[in-house]
């Protein structure tokens, strides 16, 4: 079988930095080709070369697509041939409908007037094709991230697509949505569409990929034909980081002490729909030195629970009691929560965690300025020392602490956020998706930091949608579904199946009482 796409000896450098060196990469029709590698390994650069973002002439090497050498001047050239790239950050317009978004750039029209019947007809077709049951009129803002991702794919399919490039498509999806998306990919394979899947999630890659190429430092370091040989995650990780990681999760000596946080009968209502109870009278506790995981599907209420605890920064009509080190306290504001010794590392570090335009130093000290500002005047030298200290301790890779955080990689940004919260010297740290979108090496470092925190006697709560991660680092895992805890497992006893079963059993039992009620109303 001849390759649909053949990229030969591609090299590209930016101002002296070699981003790609002699990369060879080929994709066959009807193949799902996974491209893996640490952040900065050159995956995105390679895809930008392929899609014409970097025009012909700005790189070395050749691109052969469907038998001809191609020299793309820009992204329109590659799109015209059916090479469609879906970026990690979704590019949909929130206040427009699904149909308007799909046909944004090329609506079917007659004499310049948009043919609405045709738009709706084709939108329905496309939505059916990607398996999204929504009206074409639904606004994007009313859809969850998973469904938005499907709209992006429908949008790609509205053009003539021969090759689909997906950059971390499941990074912000929960397990169920990810599975649905991957199933779509497999359906496209049957239609002869070639797919390139960039992903950090090796279990997904293992599930769908026909071929895996591993990039490291701009070079192809491994190429695995999954049909011919079994996939070994360890081998992939080893080639990615060039480090034999016997364990993906660091060891820790566990010493669990007194309860440090105790939440009882906690109940929260939705801020916009105040009749909806989002957190349903839950009890939750963490002990000193303990790492507690909260598992659950997206929308289970995990983030809402954490934020409502953290100075009531989410929800209305909040009730229940919080005990910190045995003393009952009220946390009416974020400042009060921080003072009491609570820290919450947000799920979305760019939107909620960092001030991207500010430097590393200012971000680290933001939540505890008082420590470096006697009399409300900032002692810039004390501040610099603290920031440099955290930079060394957390191994934040930056040119100096005056570098803008927006320029750092995801893993280093996350370390800046962690530094900010460590500086507040919290008794309990809640980490919401602490490793989302960061590469394997940086993940390992974050796990090490979590271990150090626990060893120092702090209580750590980790909210994560990646079950292997929770299984790897937690002493105890609580399963949340639909605003309540529906299961709890000791770290050693928990398995992905048990967690999933707890969620699914609850999903079922949720629907049972309704049926029972209906039955009961009939005499």
């Amino acid at each position, binding site marked *: 079988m001849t390759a649909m796409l053949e990229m030969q000896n591609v090299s590209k450098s930016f101002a002296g930095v070699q981003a790609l060196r002699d990369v060879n990469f080929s994709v066959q029709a009807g193949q799902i080709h996974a491209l893996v590698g640490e952040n900065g390994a050159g995956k995105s650069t390679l895809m930008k070369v392929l899609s014409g973002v970097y025009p012909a002439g700005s790189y070395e090497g050749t691109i052969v697509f469907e038998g001809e050498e191609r020299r793309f001047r820009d992204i329109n050239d590659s799109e015209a041939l059916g090479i469609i790239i879906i970026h990690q950050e979704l590019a949909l317009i929130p206040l427009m409908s699904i149909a308007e978004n799909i046909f944004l750039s090329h609506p079917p029209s007659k004499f310049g007037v948009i043919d609405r019947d045709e738009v709706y007809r084709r939108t329905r077709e496309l939505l059916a094709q990607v398996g999204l049951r929504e009206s074409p009129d639904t606004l994007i803002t009313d859809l969850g991230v998973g469904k938005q991702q499907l709209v992006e794919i429908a949008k790609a399919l509205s053009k003539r697509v021969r090759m689909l490039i997906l950059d971390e498509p499941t990074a912000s999806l929960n397990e169920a949505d990810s599975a649905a998306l991957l199933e779509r990919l497999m359906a496209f394979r049957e239609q002869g569409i070639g797919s390139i899947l960039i992903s950090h999630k090796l279990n997904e890659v293992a599930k769908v990929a026909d071929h895996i190429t591993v990039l490291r430092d701009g070079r192809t370091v491994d190429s695995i034909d999954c049909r011919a040989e079994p996939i070994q995650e360890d081998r992939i990780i080893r080639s990615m980081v060039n480090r034999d990681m016997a364990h993906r999760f660091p060891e820790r000596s566990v010493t669990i002490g007194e309860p440090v946080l105790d939440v009882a009968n906690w109940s929260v209502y939705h801020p916009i729909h105040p009749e909806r109870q989002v957190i349903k009278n839950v009890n939750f506790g963490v002990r000193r030195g303990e790492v507690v995981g909260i598992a659950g599907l997206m929308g289970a209420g995990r983030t809402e629970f954490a934020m409502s605890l953290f100075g009531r920064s989410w929800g209305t009509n909040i009730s229940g009691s919080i005990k910190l080190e045995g003393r009952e306290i009220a946390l009416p504001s974020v400042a009060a929560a921080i003072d009491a010794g609570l820290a919450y590392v947000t799920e979305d570090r760019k939107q909620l965690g960092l001030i991207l335009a500010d430097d590393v130093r200012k971000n680290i000290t933001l939540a505890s300025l008082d420590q470096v500002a006697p009399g409300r005047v900032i002692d810039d030298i004390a501040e610099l020392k603290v920031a440099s200290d955290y930079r060394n301790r957390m191994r934040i890779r930056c040119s*100096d602490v005056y570098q803008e955080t927006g320029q750092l990689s995801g893993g280093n940004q996350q370390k800046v956020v962690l530094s900010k919260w460590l500086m507040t010297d919290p008794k309990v740290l809640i980490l919401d998706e602490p490793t989302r979108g960061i590469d394997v090496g940086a993940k390992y470092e974050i796990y090490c930091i979590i271990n150090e925190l626990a060893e120092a006697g702090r209580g750590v709560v980790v909210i994560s949608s990646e079950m292997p991660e929770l299984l790897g680092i937690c002493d105890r895992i609580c399963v949340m579904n639909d605003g309540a805890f529906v299961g709890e497992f000791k770290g050693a006893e928990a398995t992905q199946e048990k967690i999933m079963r707890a969620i699914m059993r609850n999903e079922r039992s949720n629907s049972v009482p309704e049926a029972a009620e209906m039955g009961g109303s009939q005499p």
Partner: protein
Amino acid sequence: MTDKTVSLPEERRHGSFIKNNLRNYGMLISLIAIMLFFQVMTGGTLLQPLNLTNLVLQNSYIVIMALGMLLVIVTGHIDLSVGSVAGFIGAVAALLMVTYKVDYTLAFIACLALGAAIGAAQGYWVAYFKIPSFIVTLAGMLVFKGLALAVLQGQSLGPFPPTFQKLSSGFIPELLPEAGTLHPTSMLIGAVLALGLVYASAKGRSREQSHGIEVEPYAFFLGKSILLACAVLYFTYLIASHRGLPNVLVIMTALIALYGFVTRRTVIGRQIYAVGGNAKAASLSGIKTERLTFLTFVNMGVLAALAGLVFAARLNTATPKAGLGFELDVIAACFIGGASAYGGVGRVGGAVVGAMIMGVMNNGMSILGIGIDYQQVIKGLVLLGAVCIDVYNQRR
């Protein structure tokens, strides 16, 4: 932890140092270039002592308001009402002092308090009700323009008590024997200021050095200090050879120093920038974002009131047209000075330089006899150009 140690190149090269600083000082260099241009074009009139004093007096109220506007813009908002508020406060001041013969100190304080109340009223809607500041202050602009007319009943009101006039038209009293045309007290203050600035920056530099912090190259520092001292001395010399330091210049300098300090070195200043940079992240870091936004508007109200008083004292009469269009010059000054319309970025020094660029251009073009029509065209283009250059620089 992994046993891989991370060593990073620590050295910052001279080239990048100059490049970074060029960005910081870019507008200052533009100001100097513009001043030189007009100095040549006007045949030396621009920097004549009399004209320079006038330049200061003419622009003092823009500079004062630019300080408040900078904070508002840094939080990611805008205040369109400042011109109207300044005009309205001038009218109230006239009503109190001229019509009701209220003591000028009392009237002065009452006017500042009224300014604070106006700022609070507008800030309340913006901060706590999340109504876009553009709309709230557009409403405020109409309301206070109307109220100024109502208070004055469409007439001009004056003159003000002589002591009050001194706010704008007065000069600091001469304590030393006169030396020809030169005012020695003013000259002395200028010299002390120049020495103080150089001393402070030398001390700061050696303090940083003793803590092992990388500092600017010595030659760079020396050159900068000499230039700064010379500029201050030359400027005071010119001013001192007319009638000495105007009172309003003293107020202005004190305010610039105060706001410079607050924005760079205090917790509240840092928090204001954090709110503008990312309000959600700031709020989740325990910063009371709403209260800070509210306070920046209160502060703006007070400074708009002060500017209104200065302007009224300068004209020695309150007119319904006072303050018309000031907001545009003030906002332009902030943006020319490098503030970002998205919030989180902007420096006090920049806003002051921006205000001076506008002032020098107004003054220079008037001397050259360019009509008010083309003056506006040129100012508009300069605003656009300055912001374009800034955006371009940030992309690099």
